[in-house]
């Protein structure tokens, strides 16, 4: 099974977000970067599917030159190769992102993909639509928000958590599937894995950015959620005040 996984480089925001003076981006001077959590799980799922069924896995990102770090990170946990669609670092809207991914299918691999994996939504923009647009453009079925994938009788069995249980979908390949964190627990890279990742094939191209149809104007920090917490005490002596508070708000009744 040949699997393509699409990932996005996002900052590790920590406890407080601050913006650049032009309000176009998060101030990342003191931040590290990672892959969106759902997508890290998508990579782990691709590695497991290839381990079980053979084939190869490829990771793709649309992002600045620095995003090679995220591609190598995913190769370090076991993805076989990468495709880097290099940008100048500015925002690409969902339609432009999907078009660039569609245009990159075929780069770096002569064999067709059986499965295109995405995260259900990116951690930062959260547009919930790039995978669906890619599926539409390629004429492929798309299952979203998946928490379990298995291969049965040449079909993919996908399970989705819903209120009251799990919904099951059966789809033929090739297909597009978006996954949620919790589908698996991603492995950590080993030192030899990191060494191997440096030598794995990486294809780069620089797509042209079309005009945005969902055009970001500026970022806005939500109204100050900063509260003045009432300090109930220090150390175990605070227990008395905590229990008094729990009684007052009415959660001690049982």
């Amino acid at each position, binding site marked *: 099974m040949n699997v393509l996984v699409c990932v996005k480089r996002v900052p590790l925001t920590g406890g407080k977000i601050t913006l650049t003076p032009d309000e176009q981006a998060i101030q990342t001077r003191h931040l590290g970067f990672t892959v969106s959590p759902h997508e890290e799980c998508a990579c782990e799922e691709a590695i497991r599917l290839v381990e079980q069924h053979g084939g190869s896995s490829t990771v793709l990102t649309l992002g600045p030159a620095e995003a090679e770090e995220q591609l190598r990170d995913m190769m370090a946990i076991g993805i076989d190769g990468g495709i880097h669609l290099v940008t100048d670092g500015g925002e690409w809207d969902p339609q432009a992102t999907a078009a660039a991914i569609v245009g990159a299918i075929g780069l770096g691999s002569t064999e067709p993909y059986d499965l295109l994996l995405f995260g259900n939504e990116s951690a930062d923009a959260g547009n919930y639509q790039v995978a669906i647009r890619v599926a539409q453009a390629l004429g492929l079925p798309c299952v979203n928000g998946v928490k379990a994938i298995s291969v049965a009788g040449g079909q993919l069995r996908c399970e989705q958590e819903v209120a009251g249980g799990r919904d099951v979908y059966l789809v033929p390949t090739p297909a597009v599937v978006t996954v949620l964190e919790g589908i698996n627990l991603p492995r950590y890279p080993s030192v030899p894995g990191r060494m191997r990742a440096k030598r794995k094939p990486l294809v780069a191209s620089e797509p042209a950015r079309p005009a945005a149809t969902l055009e970001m104007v500026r970022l*806005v920090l939500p109204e100050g959620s900063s509260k003045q917490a009432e300090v109930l005490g220090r150390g175990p002596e605070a227990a008395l005040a905590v229990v008094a508070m729990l009684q007052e708000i009415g959660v001690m009744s049982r």
Partner: protein
Amino acid sequence: MILAFVEDPVDELCQQAVAFARSLGGEVQAFGIEDGAGYAPAAWAQTIVELAHERSASAVVAPGTDRGNEILAHVAAKLDQPMAANCVSASLGDPASVLRVRWGGSLLEEARVHGSPVLLTSAAHAVAAEPIGEVEVVPVTGALSELDQIVRVVQRIPASTAGVSLTDADVVVSGGRGVGSAEGFSVIEELAALLGGAVGCSRAVTSAGWRPHTDQVGQTGSKISPEIYIACGISGATQHMAGCKGAKRLLAINPDGEASIFASADYAVIGDLHQVVPAISAEIRKVRGT
């Protein structure tokens, strides 16, 4: 004419989506889709594409739920139009202007939407729910491609109903990296059990394998809304706060008085959870005489 898609059953988020659609100005028609064969996102989207064309809709609104976002994204892909997910507010026009949620609510974005019909989903709890009135029931269209019918729910596996669920609990006691180990959660479990609540955790804890992902509170875990959230040894990363901002009250227990979680807390205890949490449990037993 603005079309507002609602799910069956019509819940609070659907009522909010209709209220959001009304805030755009103009006539709003709420509708649901009837499909005896089960949920099929692309088929339902095709139905909406045809309905929007037939009614000359200026906008289509859906709730910013898993299915609302999924169906509207399919509509957007079929029409090759932009879609803005999880909007807090919007005004129609050419282009339309929206304020939408990023980072699970830790950040907002002002954006312009260039296209027609304008496709928007409404962020949870951005506007108050309103009575919907009559919901038009639209049968799924007969004009479906083969591709539209491939992805369909073929089976529902019912959930086991053991214990208090994280999303329904009145009390959630949660542990973070500060708990230190899987075994360390015994004190968290004890307090949660005494209060009839559920156990939660931060992403650092699930990544370390101390708790299952089903316990995770956060942007990529459960979004909870208990009467009180007791966060023990949790620093307060934006990823985590995106999952617990619906809590009515927050008690943070952390040895670091500078931890960012205190900026979102109603009550604070500065101390080591391994000492504070058992002391709270002991005090509850004492008060109850057990």
